[in-house]
């Protein structure tokens, strides 16, 4: 990511190709990772990440800098993921603490032969969480967003985000302790 953020944002506003490339290099991997966890599908994650960047580029003149560019990107990506998953039905699908009733559809988004077995099992369990719990955990644990930034990203109250995070951790603990063939 360029050191001079203000100049970089100005370049992005003019559609400068170098600045766009830097933005994708800085955040592309994180967005694909997040969207992979949200959709449960690597191909959909790539597609939605591209759509996220194109939307940001086309609406960059409206970006006021009140939130960070990272938060802005994740907010758009999260909205696209929700639309992809089925719009409002998924946005309000569970209350904090509710357990999922079925695994996410589609192939596993994270596949690597050399991956650590425990990390892989944890990710496989993570994608079985309800979408809001899943989003909060990924943004917190993987992308290092603060609870306030996650609240901005997901358009939720900060207290609700914290509740989702707590119940997500507890659900993960219980699901990890359950027999491996429980899914």
């Amino acid at each position, binding site marked *: 990511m360029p050191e001079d953020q203000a100049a970089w944002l100005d370049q992005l506003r003019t559609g400068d190709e170098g600045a766009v490339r830097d933005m994708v290099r800085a955040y592309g991997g994180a967005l694909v*990772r997040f969207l992979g966890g949200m959709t449960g599908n690597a191909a959909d994650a790539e597609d939605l990440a591209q759509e996220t960047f*194109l939307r940001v580029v086309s609406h960059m003149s409206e970006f006021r800098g009140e939130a960070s560019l990272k938060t802005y990107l994740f907010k758009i990506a999260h909205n696209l993921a929700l639309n992809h998953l089925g719009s409002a039905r998924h946005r309000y699908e569970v209350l904090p603490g509710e357990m999922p009733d079925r695994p996410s559809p589609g192939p596993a988004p994270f596949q690597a032969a050399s991956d650590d077995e425990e990390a892989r099992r*944890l990710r496989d369990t993570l994608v079985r969480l309800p979408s809001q719990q899943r989003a909060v955990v990924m943004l917190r644990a993987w992308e290092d967003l603060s609870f306030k930034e996650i609240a901005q990203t997901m358009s939720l109250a900060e207290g609700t985000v914290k509740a989702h995070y707590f119940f997500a951790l507890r659900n993960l603990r219980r699901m990890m302790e359950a027999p491996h063939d429980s899914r």
Partner: protein
Amino acid sequence: MTHDEALRYGVAGGPRPQEAQAHLSACPECATELEALRAIEGRLARSAPRVQEVDLLAGRILAQVRRPRSRGWAIPSAAALALALGLWAAWLSRPGEKLASPAPAELASAPAVLDLSGGTDTTADLLGAYETEAASLGTVPPEALKGILSATEYGG
């Protein structure tokens, strides 16, 4: 304070910190649960997959960014030209009116064939239509995805 409220404070912070800390200190069950939840947090932080080959993604996005820009003036210009030619042709082809000179009174009351004051609106409409089409160009044909998907890896 309930066990859940105390545990939520323990992993994420929140209101009534003194009460929560007092509960966590006095409740062995919550202390054990909190330790387990923090262990899950640590494992989660280490489980983030890395995504590689974002340069390919950047190339694909830049190709999409360039495409509507290169066509930016072609669509409205062609549409505006076609509209102007059509109006001109229709005006010329009106039977019996080519050589006729309208009376001054008719001129005063006749509606304008081409109202120049509406030119700005017409241009805005054309640009709006263009932007709608440009937005639709943001979608990627399935065949374009094959290259990047085959080259993208998810590693631990």
